[in-house]
């Protein structure tokens, strides 16, 4: 996987395509990877809305014609939508983060104690606050099986209109060095602007597209 060949498509005038990649590169183009990509970020596969067509992927046929070559054909669709989707950015405040690690015997218990301390001290000031233990439940928000980690990392994240409060997340986590469970280490903190995106529709005739060529 160190040298993945990026996929490309060779498209014929009749609307069939061959998905492939440069020979002798890493990676794999097979029915599995092509099926995953066909459904990526799709909701209703009968009506995948794009600016040019409302596509229907339930008529697509896939065939492996050679190693790392998949033939795609049979896709269909309906008339393109009357409106275009527009994504609008808005300033959503500041994201503050802080992390600290614990290792060895009792690491998880110490991390859980840190989590309690951080919630108690920070939740009065934040509508949006999360404290997770990386290594336990930061990714699926729960565990689907039981396993005991050797080391864990506590991560606190909060969003606030005022940067000063977002910075407080990191300060509280750093404070755990001296005002928290034993042997916490490797604390880091970070604040970024939080830009939210919401989507809405715009009438097609309000959008004028143009292409500019820059020559050197």
């Amino acid at each position: 996987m160190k040298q993945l060949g990026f996929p490309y498509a060779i498209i014929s005038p009749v609307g069939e395509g061959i998905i492939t990649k440069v020979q002798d590169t890493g990676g794999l183009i097979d029915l599995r990877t092509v099926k995953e990509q066909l459904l990526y970020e799709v909701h209703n596969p009968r009506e995948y809305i794009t600016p040019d067509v409302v596509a229907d992927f339930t008529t697509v046929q896939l065939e492996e014609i050679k190693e790392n070559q998949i033939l795609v054909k049979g896709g269909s669709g309906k008339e393109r939508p009357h409106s275009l989707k527009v994504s609008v950015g808005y300033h959503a405040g500041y994201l503050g983060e802080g992390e600290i690690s614990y290792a060895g015997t009792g690491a998880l218990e110490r991390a859980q104690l840190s989590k309690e301390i951080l919630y108690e001290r920070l939740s009065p000031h934040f509508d949006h606050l999360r404290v997770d233990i990386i290594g336990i439940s930061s990714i699926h928000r729960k565990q689907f099986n039981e396993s005991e980690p050797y080391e864990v990392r506590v991560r606190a994240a909060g969003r606030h209109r005022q940067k000063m409060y977002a910075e407080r997340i990191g300060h509280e986590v750093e404070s755990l060095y001296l005002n928290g469970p034993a042997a916490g280490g490797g604390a880091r903190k970070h604040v970024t602007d939080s830009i939210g995106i919401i989507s809405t529709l715009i009438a097609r005739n309000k959008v004028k597209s143009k292409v500019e060529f820059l020559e050197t």
Partner: protein
Amino acid sequence: MKLYEIAHSRAGDKGNIVNLSLIPFKEKDYDYLYHNVTAAVVKEHLKDIVEGEVVRYELANIRAFNFVCYDSLLGGVTTSLALDAHGKCLSSALLELEVEK
């Protein structure tokens, strides 16, 4: 047996919605998944992650399923506080589902 032994999945995100494809490694297992991995089963399995409904779409043409899970990204990728804001790791959550064999 877990679902990851007989199928693969990829997570995609749009706003506060995650879509999880479910594709059997062997096409003959499509019928088994059709009857045993329904939208209700997936909703129950992911109930601590997905707050809204789960809708299943079937693509018999490529022997695959697409589960659309509403309200599952803590408000949406751009303002989520989760470490995995896009929910790209949620495909492995789906594949933890216990199945008979």
